[in-house]
């Protein structure tokens, strides 16, 4: 097992190098380029443009730009943003905690809700509970996030008023009320709408996988055997079913955790959340190579890492899988 993990980690290095080359090459293809922001501005003369091209290091050959970036990474640096002129690491460091705060809470919320819901839905297949939950899952899945977010804002922020203050019932965006002391209520109030959108979205997916996994297990012969032996239903489910039923969900979770670090672009956009999703999107718009490279490689590294962790957890949960 240790040897297996070690081998996989070694394999990850060339994989990540390959990805970084691919991403770097793709990035050069961003239409517009980093100087697009200086265009269409009467104050920027053609001479200014040529000078900026030189001074921002854009005249250096591409392969050399890549090697410079790689060298910087090996020194624990991610280069400097072409736009804000600040270290890319600082730019990312300012957004990452905000994103993990929102996505993390939403993810845990969805997970903690989905396991029991999926389990009960499967065991009581076609009960009213199952129908209600399946419906809810379908709905959560089928509603476009940005549309749902906007409807929530119009409802809870624009239309409904707080009876005590006369202000909006819930804040329509941001992480806290600016210029006031931080209180728990205030933070929760700001978290409520964006987290609900994310939870409903994640929940549906998780419940479906949990339910499907559990249903499969319930139809397996060993469960029927256990039933036939007269074991209590709860015992059957917990002892024999659960561990196998959670397998599909584990795969899904392994795919999702790295995404938490990327932030939820649409939710962050609608709820003015200063997170990674928006940093990523504005970096594309601005062709801010260093920041974009940092964001994308962080995400790639996590995906590779969690791919490995998923496989290990799989092995732990399913003894039929052997690693050689």
């Amino acid at each position, binding site marked *: 097992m240790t040897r297996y993990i070690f081998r996989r980690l070694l394999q990850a290095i060339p994989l990540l190098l390959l990805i970084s080359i691919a991403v770097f090459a793709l990035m050069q293809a961003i239409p517009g380029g980093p100087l697009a922001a200086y265009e269409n501005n009467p104050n920027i003369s053609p001479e200014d443009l040529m000078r900026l091209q030189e001074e921002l290091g854009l005249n250096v050959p591409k392969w050399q730009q890549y090697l410079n970036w790689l060298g910087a990474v090996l020194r624990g640096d991610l280069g400097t943003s072409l736009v804000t002129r600040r270290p890319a690491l600082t730019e990312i460091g300012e957004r990452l905690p905000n994103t993990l705060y929102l996505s993390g809470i939403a993810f845990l919320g969805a997970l903690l809700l989905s396991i029991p819901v999926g389990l009960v839905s499967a065991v009581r297949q076609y009960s009213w509970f199952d129908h*209600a939950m399946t*419906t809810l899952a379908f709905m959560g899945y089928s509603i476009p996030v940005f549309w749902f977010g906007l409807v929530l804002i119009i409802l809870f922020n624009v239309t409904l008023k707080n009876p005590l203050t006369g202000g909006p019932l819930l804040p*329509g965006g941001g992480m806290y009320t600016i210029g006031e002391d931080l209180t728990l209520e205030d933070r929760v109030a700001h978290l409520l709408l964006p987290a609900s959108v994310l939870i409903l979205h994640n929940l549906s997916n998780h419940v479906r996988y949990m339910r499907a996994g559990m249903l499969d297990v319930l139809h397996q012969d060993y469960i029927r055997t256990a039933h036939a032996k007269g074991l209590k239903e709860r015992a059957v489910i917990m002892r024999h079913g659960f561990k196998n039923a959670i397998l599909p969900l584990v795969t899904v979770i392994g795919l999702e955790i790295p995404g938490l670090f990327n932030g939820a672009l649409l939710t*962050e956009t609608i709820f003015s959340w*200063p997170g990674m999703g928006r940093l990523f999107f504005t970096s594309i718009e601005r062709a801010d190579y260093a920041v974009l490279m940092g964001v994308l490689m962080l995400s790639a590294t996590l995906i590779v890492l969690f791919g490995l962790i998923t496989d290990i957890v799989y092995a732990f949960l399913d003894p039929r899988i052997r690693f050689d």
Partner: protein
Amino acid sequence: MHARKLVVPFSLLALLFVLAACAAPEPTKAPPPAAPTSAPSPTRAPIPTSTAAPTAAAGPKRGGKITLAIWQSPTTLNPLLGTQTVMNEALIYILDGMLRDQPDGSRAPNLAKEVPTTQNGGVSADGKTITYKLKEGVLWSDGTPFTCDDVKFTWQAIMTPGIGVASTTGYSDMESVECPNPTTVIVKYKKFYAGYLTRFGTILPKSAGDPKDMKNWAYNRKPMGTGPFKVQEWVADDHITLVRNENYRDKDKPYLDQIVVRIVPNVDVGLQLLASGEVDVLWSVTIDTTPQLDKMAGVKYSAPPRDGGERIFMNMAENKDPADPTKPHTILGDVKVRQALARAVNKQRIIDQLLFGKVAPLPGELNNGYFACADVKPVPYDAAQAKKLLDEAGWVVGADGIRVSKGAKYAPDGTRLRLKYSTTSGNKLREDAQTLIIQDFKAVGVEAYVENAPSSVVIGTWDANSPRRHGNFDLVQYSTSVDSLEPLGGLINTFATASLPSEKNKGGQNVSRFSDPKVDALLTQAQTEPDPAKRKALYCQVAQIVNDAYPAIYLYQAGNAYAYRERLQGWIANGNNSMGWNAQDWWLK
């Protein structure tokens, strides 16, 4: 059993249908008479100041906080490193310059005591030496005195090579900045620079840091200035908190204690926060959203006319990558076709229907301020004339109503009159206008197909293969201006032969590939003409020649609305400056 399963989702569907059907019908109606907008007169005459508080019974009060929303994220607050409009929107509260642009397009002294002119001895006879007298007793917000040395430092910082300063335009033409005493600045230009009054729009303190190390300045995130407010904190992508500058030169001002600048991701989010009351002021919304503002209780808006506006550049040279500017476009190379297209567009319908009549048609370049040319008139809408022109140009109506060439000037017979039409995606007003314009084209037998892209692509650089630069486009629509307050640079960039984009001149911005030796000569003459009145005559000749050649279809004047809650008093709309240009006078009712 199963049937019950369906009751929930489908009854929900039904409910939503009902909701949609019941939603209050809001037939299009004229804005209520109470709308505060000083509707721009249809002429191009500079619009006088429209005050936010026409009647203020009680005088200004001190104290209070407002929240305003901008919907782009500033990249830096060091004016030397950035060019974004939104950066200037934030900096106007913090930094001052020599002069400040007024609503009528004139300039008023800010840190300078008076506007330098030949009469008051501020401008030498050859126009190459400018002398500024500085106001006395001005302090930086940290309490240190503001002097001529700071002006000199600003120039030196801008001219420091290798640090990536955004714009050196004008400053690179300066020979020296001298300080005979702390309140006198003498700027000497190597050659006459027409835009001398536009320079030193922001002045940095010499304590900002060593220019060579500019990208690491703490100043970039927390600038210090002589303006009414100073930065308390800036949380990236979230907000900038500005607090009163206790050292502001006018002891009674600013009236407000605090301005929170909220950075929201897009304008629709900003509109919702304005509707809910979370923000008091919303920066720059397109006028097509004003029906939403009309519905908000206690919210007013004003749309001051601005410089420049929306136009469709037509590619006069061949549509190829890269294009040879001397080869004419097969369809648009013929001036009659361009003229016909300009007449085919019903501008007034776009203005009436999409902009609620709140802006004027754009007559051409130079629509604002001192250099506005009254003789340059908008092209009238005349579909019949357009059809006639196209017939004359050798484009006959084909079987499906779209014209086909038969004896056209440059197109081989049988060419279909089909044009690629691009604009920036994601700008609703622009896309809607495009839809109407395509219809207008179709009515005269011209087919246009849409190929929109994000603005970074449409506007983009030569190296990023921008079609606008390389010349592989037919029609491209966006807003720009030649900067009417001093249009020389803008006119050269847009219409001089020397500005034709090419591999050798990647920065060239002459998008329509316009080239006329008369225009080149007039612009060269203007470069050495210190007398503004004579320059104006030259510019207006250029504008007229350009208009007669139809390199662009001029649509409507720029003019976004600023929305604010009624309780904000003292704001004066100013289309020539950032929203906070008179923030020291703002107060809350």
